[in-house]
């Protein structure tokens, strides 16, 4: 018989770390400037894809780099940082190539429709929004916000993976890596989906009024990830 309470109490620090990692991912998704389907027609500011998809693409790239780093070091800070860097690189490369397409392929300058002046560069925005659209492309503030989102998502994913790998268990390493990585991907998706109810398809970044709604999503993620973490810790710790 598995000692459920014993396993949970022995790994309580990891249950908390996984839960915090989930909340971090949930918060990070609010930073990512996604315009959904309208942005693919240059009808809205941000990247032309879905919230979950882009956050997952970046976060999972971070998970790959964090997984590689964890194999060679035990330094938690370095593992989290390498997760953040992997996700930031994916996000910024996607955004810069997106900027090429908006500028050279579609022929419209980056512009935000949510603010009159870019909070970072202080550039005027409304004059550059073409008729019948809600902005297009990636103004500097959205780009920076996306990089921050990528970094936080990468840290969150790496924290979850690190915690899962640190649980006491009797598994051979190859099986432990398999279980930990699949749980990390699963928990990542749970927390990438929850904020999309707040975002409702489009968000420009931290300057968007929708960004202020993040506490609700973070709270929901804390609760959802807590249950996920219990299942994950029991599954890995019980073997």
């Amino acid at each position, binding site marked *: 018989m598995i000692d459920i309470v014993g396993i949970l109490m022995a790994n309580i620090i990891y249950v908390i770390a996984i839960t915090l990692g989930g909340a971090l991912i949930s918060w990070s998704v609010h930073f990512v400037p996604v315009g959904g389907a309208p*942005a693919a027609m240059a009808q809205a500011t941000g990247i032309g894809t879905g919230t979950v998809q882009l956050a997952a*693409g970046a976060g999972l790239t971070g998970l790959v780099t964090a997984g590689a780093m964890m194999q060679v070091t035990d330094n938690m800070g370095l593992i989290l940082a390498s997760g953040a860097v992997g996700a930031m690189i994916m996000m910024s490369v*996607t955004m810069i190539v997106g900027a090429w397409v908006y500028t050279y392929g579609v022929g419209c300058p980056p512009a935000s429709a949510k603010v009159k002046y870019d909070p970072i560069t202080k550039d005027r925005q409304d004059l550059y929004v073409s008729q*019948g*659209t809600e902005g297009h492309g990636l103004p500097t503030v959205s780009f920076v916000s996306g990089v921050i989102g990528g970094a936080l998502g990468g840290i969150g994913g790496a924290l979850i993976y690190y915690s899962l790998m640190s649980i006491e268990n009797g598994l051979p390493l190859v099986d432990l890596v398999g279980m930990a990585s699949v749980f990390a991907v699963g928990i990542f998706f749970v927390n990438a989906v929850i904020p999309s109810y707040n975002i409702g398809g489009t968000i420009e970044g931290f300057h968007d009024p929708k960004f202020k709604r993040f506490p609700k999503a973070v709270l929901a993620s804390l609760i959802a990830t807590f249950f996920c973490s219990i299942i994950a810790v029991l599954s890995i710790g019980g073997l």
Partner: protein
Amino acid sequence: MEPLTGMGVLALMGAAATIAGASEDLESDVGSQSNPNSQVQLAPQMMYPHRIYSKAISGEPPSNALMCAIGGTTASVLITAGASAVLALVIGAIVAAAIHGTYSVTAYFGRSASQKRFKQPVYLDLIASHTPVIMGYSFITTFCILVVSYLMVAVLAHPFSLPLLAFIWGITVGAIGSSTGDVHYGAEREFQNVEYGAGLNAANSGNIVRKAESGLRNGIDNSWFCAKFGGPVTGLAFGMTVFLSGWITALFDPTKGDAIGWVSVITGVIIVLILILWNRNIEVAARAAFGTYKEDEVEAEVAA
């Protein structure tokens, strides 16, 4: 590992990833998947029936992740059974392409048949001409992603399993394809009938171009156009992601100590900062070159 060997493997991975990115985007253009397909689906409802292959199996990332995970799992099983890696990767990619082709056909029938009330025809010859192209592109994408994943597992000794790495890179290539190349298809190719140099006016929604250079436009015409810009830049984006995320640790190998590991992290941050500055540069240059869409009301009043 020797730094030079690591660099060589990374270069090969970057090249394979570049091809995977380009073929992923062109596959989504032939079949009209992802976000721009919202306009293709909307068109018949706005009384613009068309001859474009409309398959939206799912969002691009899950669809590519499914394809790559199927390919990766098949390849992994074959390698475990003793097959050579090259054969296993090819067979894995063929199985994935066949399953993707099945989904494409059912998606096309479903999407088009459900729009019967808007007089949208179901073109059987489109199935015969487009599905092999879609399967061909999906074979190339899956094979290249499997090459990247296999090199990571077998040479760079990444701890994740081959199917999981293929799944993750499938999600990433789909996310990049739908964020970059698809904009060229959705914002430019679908709406060449409106003036160049602006986002799609909401009033024009659904009014996609339906006539081609010769005859009626179809998905292959779209991939011909997007292969000039959207496809290659998607390839560059995915290639850069795979290459740069591995390059920083190949250059500053963290196995030699945590200090060097931190240097690799700092290098990554510097790359990101350079990209932020590059984006700012593009923003300033584009605004200077294209100008504003409307006059500043305050300035206009002062001038009057």
